[in-house]
């Protein structure tokens, strides 16, 4: 079975859906490495995003790895790590 993986584009969509548009002035190329606070997303926005990812993949995310993820790229890495670990368990 394929390991589920969230892409940066999908994360952007979930963010927008959960918490509205980010700061307009940040170009796409800079988005992955811009801090969430500079994008205009606070801790509750990320909590909301985590909830949606959990529902989408039917998993429970652990807060620990995600809490320190300051940028979309780091957040994505932490999420995909957990998704892969869950997939390995189910095999």
């Amino acid at each position: 079975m394929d390991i589920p993986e969230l892409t940066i584009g999908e994360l952007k969509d979930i963010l927008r859906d959960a918490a509205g548009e980010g700061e307009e002035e940040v170009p796409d190329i800079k988005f992955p490495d811009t801090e969430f606070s500079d994008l205009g997303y606070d801790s509750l926005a990320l909590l909301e995003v985590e909830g949606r990812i959990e529902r989408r993949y039917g998993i429970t995310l652990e807060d620990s790895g995600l809490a320190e993820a300051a940028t979309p790229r780091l957040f994505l890495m932490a999420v995909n790590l957990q998704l892969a670990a869950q997939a390995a368990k189910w095999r």
Partner: protein
Amino acid sequence: MRTHVVVTGIGIVAANGLGTSDYWEATKSGTGGIGAVRRFDATGYPSRLSGEVPGFVAAAHLPSRLIPQTDHMTQLALVAADWALLDAGVDPARWPEFSIGVTTAASSGGFEFGQRELQNLWRKGGEYVSAYQSFAWFYAVNTGQISIHHGLRGPSGVLVSDQAGGLDAVAQGRRQIWKGMRVMVTGGVDASICPWGWVAQLTSRRMSTEDDPKRAYRPFDAEAAGHVPGEGGAILILEDADSARERGARVYGEIGGYAATFDPAPGSGRESGLRRAITLALADAGLSSGDVDVVLADAAGMPDLDRVEAAAIGAVFGPRGVPVTAPKTMTGRLLSGAGPLDLATALLSIRDGLIPPTINVVPASEYELDLVVAAPRTAPVNAALVLARGYGGFNSAMIVRRAVG
């Protein structure tokens, strides 16, 4: 010696007008905004009319990031606050960091948002409840979001006393200015037009079951049989009078006096606290009853409550002793928004020398009220008394008057 506290900005959201000038144009001419409920399907309910703010699209006024985390009432409040600050010429970024606070009133918090999340909880599970439910439902959220959105770090809070709360919040804003603040953002905006909010309000047994908007809400009429709930209210910018003068701000008027009382327990045989609230407010303002040019009534629209209010007004001002009006017949009863909207209306009456009418009402002669009906009345207005009564026994009275100097 208490500093004078004036109003330098107004922002209004109401069923007959989105924005101060729309509202005042409609109100002056007796144009109401009550109609069939549109926000949800109310056909199965005993009450099916409401006063809903027309043409409000949150995304047109607010940054997209605020939309998912705010109830409809908070969106209305944020926009009203934006407009009030603009109207006052106050750009918070240019003021000292802790010089502006926020005190609003709320009756019910974010019911529409809360209902949706409760439905998510029970239909789908806890993991489907929005993280934003943590504050979007809460009474203080309007104060919170206004304060965060504008970086207002002065003392802030919320007053919850049903329909009396709006006046209580403005009074608290006045107290903060006496204690040293230069500006306070005050007022109230409520919006509970959703099934959960509807059912909650129906328990008061004071909601009209009439389907004709012209007959549904008729305070002081012999056929009064309840009120129509509305959404909206007003945000007022209060300011230290010296501060306003120094920066050349336009002043609508002064918060002249205020008092709040509580009714005795039902069955005690003692009179309601409303008359005392009026006399204490007059004393606070240093005015006599003869100085008041108009009373904006609470106007419950239930015969027993109308009788109590008419008696209190009559006891202080004498039979037909002062013009009385209820512009809320055009907007519905706005819970925490009622007091501030009536204050704004009173200030505009002072500015324009015009008393807006009470619509759809033929006043019952037993009340001995000089009720302004049929048409607006042109008359100089130098001081106005606003009354607000909250379910459960709250009575608040506030006097606004033309500012001196």
